[in-house]
């Protein structure tokens, strides 16, 4: 990157309030126009992958919630799934339903936070408080069930920590959420300021999104029907249709997340039906002190709120992984900013960046 006399080099972050954690974007500006963007990641690096090489599987399990602290369930599920599949453990119907219900609740809480934070980035303050209020209901439920608000440590190899309780709380949450979503939509969706800041901004063409390995809601908001949940074994008996929108811009990504919450509510309802029918937990728990994955390589993926997440483990037959790698959606979204922000104006940069729903612990790991 050469800086000429007429261009300005600007550091956005790492302490900018709307960089969601600690992201530094090195922008080269010509007036207000962005000529180049260079994301500088690593401020939140905790060595999650290297750490695994020195820990047994049961020791590693509680720490994976911290890869994405807004949606910890997804990463526990991935690690549990890898061990379960490697050791040939089958999950009972009830355990599967519990997992689906909690994953989707977790997804809703993550999307709710995103809606608030995104609107806050654009300068609207009230929706932030409203979404936080609803998210709080979900977090309190998680606290009641698992003991903590964000670091659940609830899914374990072969099942769940204990049987699900307080189902009426979930019912209450999914009953009031649709009204609240309507409230948000009344404030946000057709607001002229919001529209002018998001409509037509940060357009991602489908083929470019695919070439840049963008997944999740960001991809579906560009009109590509790709949702890992469609082939996921947990979701096998569930009916749902991926949310696909063709607008491709920041507004589409907002709308897609609202619709996705509604889709999640449907999934939770189906899971609750199963929970009511299937009363026996039937866990196949294994002794955590003796877990050893057979020699070989393992790969599993899941649809996390910020795109496809996957895990790769190479095992040499010991009680610790030989090598472990996470794939997270946000990492690719941040990388994509290099080309996405070029040609846009500085005041749109945050709107576009915010619309991708990036969370930095997931990027830095």
């Amino acid at each position, binding site marked *: 990157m050469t800086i000429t006399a007429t261009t300005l080099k600007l550091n956005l972050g790492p302490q900018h309030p709307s960089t969601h954690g600690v992201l530094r974007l090195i922008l080269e500006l010509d007036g207000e126009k962005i000529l180049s963007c260079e994301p500088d990641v690593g401020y939140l690096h905790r060595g999650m992958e290297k750490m695994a090489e020195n820990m047994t599987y049961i020791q590693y399990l509680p720490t994976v919630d911290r890869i994405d602290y807004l949606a910890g369930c997804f990463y526990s599920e991935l690690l549990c799934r890898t061990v379960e599949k490697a050791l040939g453990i089958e999950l009972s119907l009830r355990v599967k339903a519990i997992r689906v219900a909690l994953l989707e609740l977790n997804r809703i809480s993550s999307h709710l936070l995103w809606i608030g934070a995104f609107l806050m980035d654009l300068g609207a303050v009230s929706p932030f408080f409203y979404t936080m209020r609803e998210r709080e209901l979900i977090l309190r439920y998680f606290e009641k069930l698992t003991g903590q608000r964000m670091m659940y440590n609830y899914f374990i190899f072969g099942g769940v920590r204990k049987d699900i309780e307080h189902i009426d709380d979930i019912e209450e949450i999914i009953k009031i959420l649709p009204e609240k979503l309507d409230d948000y939509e*009344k*404030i946000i969706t057709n607001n002229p300021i919001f529209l002018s800041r998001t409509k037509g901004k940060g357009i991602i063409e489908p083929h470019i999104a695919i070439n840049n390995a963008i997944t999740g809601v960001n991809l579906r908001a560009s009109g590509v029907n790709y949702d890992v949940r469609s082939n996921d074994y947990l979701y096998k008996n569930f009916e749902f249709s991926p949310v696909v929108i063709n607008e491709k811009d920041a507004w589409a990504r907002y709308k897609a997340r609202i619709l996705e919450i509604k889709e999640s509510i449907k999934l939770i309802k189906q899971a609750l039906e199963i929970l009511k029918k299937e009363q026996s937990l039937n866990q196949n728990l294994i002794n955590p*002190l003796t877990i050893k994955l057979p020699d070989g390589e393992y790969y599993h993926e899941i649809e996390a709120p910020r795109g496809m997440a996957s895990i790769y483990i190479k095992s040499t037959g010991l009680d610790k992984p030989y090598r472990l790698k996470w794939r997270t959606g946000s990492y690719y979204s941040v990388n994509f900013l290099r080309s996405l922000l070029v040609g846009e104006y500085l005041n749109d940069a945050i709107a576009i960046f915010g619309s991708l729903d990036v969370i930095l612990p997931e990027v830095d790991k």
Partner: protein
Amino acid sequence: MFSIIEGLFTVIKHLFMKPTTLEYPEKKRYQSEMFRGKPYVKIGNDGCVGCGICKKVCPAKAIEYIQDNNKKVISYTFNLEKCIFCGNCMYYCPRGAIKLSQEFELATEQKEELKLNYKGGCDD
């Protein structure tokens, strides 16, 4: 124009709702039974027998204990500088000797206070 009025109306509606926040620290909210806060351990005949499982499942290496010549645990320490409150020790202790309590206000000026030491004999 209509959308602005509709939005404003929704915001104004919220003016007449009950507040959802609490004046911490004067008022504290209900803490669930399951909450994982400051850890306690019971030492003695009906408590810890020094099997070492908690040490093996702890991701943060936060647990240390000392045994006497008869393998009886005489001192047990949680290092809260390292502990991540995951609860593994509580979940896997075969004697049910560990309990993570509802106490969460653990900030202190003295670093030594974060080394929670429990000795046998009394329930300190």
